């Protein structure tokens, strides 16, 4: 079920009413309702893949309990590996089987050995990369004795399948989300009203910014050979805003929806396009995934400790794995590697933690130095997105070649002023709200509910008036 669909517009109020009016007196019933609603939500897309979620839930629940009882380190390690193999096994099969097969065949044929192997027609279950990582963090934390296992199967099932963040995150840690299923939720007006506003803002980002940008980005990327350098750069810019509007919009809807049910999810995007260097960008972009890789891959590998070689190796590993997580294509691997190249000079010069604070807290506008840093980081990000969006490496390289030609200085062949104005307006609002948890967070401080309501009204009308006519799926569904 898509957040920007009629189905969800009916589903959400129904679950909300059942949740607060029918099951509000019984925590177990409320959790059970969330499990059923989440399974319905997921099954609406393809009910067959519910078995994967159910299996993953049962395995990790059992492994969690077994780990807490087991004291023998070898057996504990075996239990952990059971969880890792089941979760990554599903992910590997559904997402990467064909990629590895095709590359093995190509590699063998390069050395003169022809292998007959047929690719499988595999459907990628929506959100598999998200919920497998979420459940993996649960068993790893128990293994590391950072977390006590739950004995409440319903609460654990609700944690694994919680519908607002099931298919595209944020990837929640058990330590943050699971305890919220144990406690009675109390309806709070301000939390729910703010949740609705965050949903509306997410819908605006998705339906107005991302979907309109998608139309132009698709046209330019799909016919890149027909356009000059400046148009191709504009196409990359449109994709930059498409992916941000799409993914951060999804996160806003997910967080806002959770708040309607009394839950708090972690911030997933913190205005990444205002970052002053790449290290800061990665602290602000897809925070739940970045921190997951940091805690469960980078730090176990040694992190930034050790010698230069170790630092370089770990940086490349984390960025390449992160790229590969996005999809079984060399373009994602190169995108990851390119970000590692951007990041390494900062790490080696120990300047990767320069910008930890908020952006331009004292003034409305950034200083010249800050503005310059933001612009450079933004352009580097735009160029990296070309690999992310391109069909293959060859396509990306030819795209780059055309951009870095004299035609970059010619007039763009496509110039949709209405959309450009909307993007400027959007980024303006984001800039004004840059110190909040999301752009409209500051509206909470306005006492007049009339003004707050008026703002929501204007936002809905603008979304309807400017939403794209072509319904697009969320990009991150494919990951």
């Amino acid at each position: 079920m898509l957040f920007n669909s009629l189905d969800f517009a009916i589903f959400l109020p129904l679950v909300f009413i059942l949740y607060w009016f029918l099951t509000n007196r019984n925590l177990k019933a409320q959790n059970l309702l969330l499990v059923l609603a989440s399974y319905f939500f997921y099954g609406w897309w393809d009910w067959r893949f519910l078995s994967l979620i159910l299996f993953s839930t049962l395995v990790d629940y059992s492994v969690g309990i077994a780990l807490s009882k087991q004291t023998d380190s070898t057996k504990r390690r075996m239990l952990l590996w059971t969880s890792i193999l089941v979760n990554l096994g599903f992910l590997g099969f559904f997402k990467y089987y064909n990629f590895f097969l095709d590359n093995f065949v190509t590699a063998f044929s390069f050395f003169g050995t022809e292998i007959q192997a047929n690719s499988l027609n595999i459907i990628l279950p929506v959100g598999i990369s998200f919920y497998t990582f979420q459940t993996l963090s649960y068993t790893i934390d128990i293994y590391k004795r950072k977390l006590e296992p739950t004995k409440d199967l319903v609460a654990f099932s609700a944690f694994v399948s919680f519908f607002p963040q099931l298919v595209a995150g944020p990837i929640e840690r058990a330590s943050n989300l699971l305890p919220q299923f144990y406690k009675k939720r109390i309806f709070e007006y301000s939390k729910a009203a703010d949740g609705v506003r965050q949903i509306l803002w997410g819908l605006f980002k998705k339906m107005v910014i991302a979907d309109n940008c998608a139309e132009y980005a698709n046209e330019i990327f799909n016919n890149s050979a027909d356009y000059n350098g400046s148009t191709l750069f504009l196409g990359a810019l449109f994709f930059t805003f498409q992916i941000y509007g799409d993914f951060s919009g999804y996160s806003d809807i997910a967080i806002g929806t959770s708040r309607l049910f009394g839950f708090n999810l972690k911030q997933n995007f913190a205005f990444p396009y205002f970052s002053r260097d790449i290290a800061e960008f990665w602290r602000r972009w897809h925070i739940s995934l970045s921190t997951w890789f940091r805690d469960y891959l980078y730090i176990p590998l040694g992190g930034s400790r050790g010698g230069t070689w170790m630092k370089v190796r770990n940086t490349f590993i984390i960025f390449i794995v992160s790229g590969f997580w996005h999809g079984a294509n060399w373009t994602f691997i190169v995108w990851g590697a390119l970000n590692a190249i951007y990041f390494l000079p900062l790490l080696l010069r120990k300047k990767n933690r320069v910008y930890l604070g908020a952006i331009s807290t004292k003034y409305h506008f950034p200083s010249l130095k800050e503005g310059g840093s933001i612009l450079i980081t933004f352009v580097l990000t735009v160029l990296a997105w070309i690999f992310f969006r391109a069909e293959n490496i060859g396509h990306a390289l030819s795209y780059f070649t055309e951009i870095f030609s004299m035609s970059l200085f010619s007039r763009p062949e496509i110039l949709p002023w209405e959309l450009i104005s909307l993007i400027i307006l959007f980024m303006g609002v984001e800039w004004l709200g840059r110190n909040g948890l999301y752009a409209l967070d500051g509206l909470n401080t306005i006492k007049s509910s009339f003004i707050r309501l008026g703002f929501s009204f204007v936002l809905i009308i603008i979304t309807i008036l400017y939403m794209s006519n072509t319904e697009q799926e969320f990009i991150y569904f494919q990951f």
Partner: protein
Amino acid sequence: MKKFLFETVLLFILVALTINYINSLDRPPRVEKILTIKKKLDIINLGTSHGNNFRYSGLSIYGGAFNRAGNTLYYDLQNYKFVKKHLADSAVIMLPVSYFAFGLDENRNDKGVDNPFVNDFYEYLPRKSIYSYSAKRDISLKVNRIQKNFRNLIPKKKKVKKKTNKKSKKDKKVISFDTVAHAEMLKEFAIKRVVHHKKIGSFASPEKNVNYLKMLIADAKQAGYRPVLITVPYYKEYAERFEAEWLAENYDRYVSEISSQYDIPYLDYGKDDRFSFKAELFMNSDHLNKKGIASFNEILFTDLIKLGIISKDDVLQKKNK
């Protein structure tokens, strides 16, 4: 919770009222026409683009044409139900039935599932009247209309018209009507058109369409209205390319059956010599031009008087004008 629910419902109502207002600012002419019927209708016609041949201006009785290009008998029935509340007692309902009409499916899927044929119906018909109603399509069409209307509210720069060497009225009159060339054009058009109409005329099972027409007629008769089946004039190159066997199989038998079953008149001008051989009366192979329409309406209303369906006074008014 009460405050939250109150504000949410209030927001929903405000948004609904606003979008409804923007939606109503502008509508396609044929939708506007059916939504703004001013008087009780004494005579109406339904049907496909062949219904364009009817003219009611100048009659003392009030008439309205509610046909549309490529219309199906299913939507003829729905349009009839929609305008029924505006019909005068014993109103005449003219039902021009095209040769291909019994073979069309409800939503014209011969043009593809997402074809825009049904879009207009979403603007005024109730949901239950729309065949295979899709809420998704409904919302999408409404959003499109709202966005279009909103953009029209924003004043646009007037485009500077380029000066062109337009021909004066005198120059236009000099151009003579080349009957031979026109007849040749009608023939060429007819060849393509018949192939297309035979194809769409056998797309779907006719039984359902026969049933829709029967439902319309039965309801009209029961309400005291007077339905009339009509085949409009076609140019000979068009009419003759529908072989007798094809017509008997796909058209004649249904029209005859319905006419006799409900005891309603059937006026067949399809191969009428007064039109069929006269190229100068046709705009194309199966549509009359202005002159043809005038001629056809004069004959039609004379026939309707003879049948006692309308009175002489209703038409005399027209002649006096």
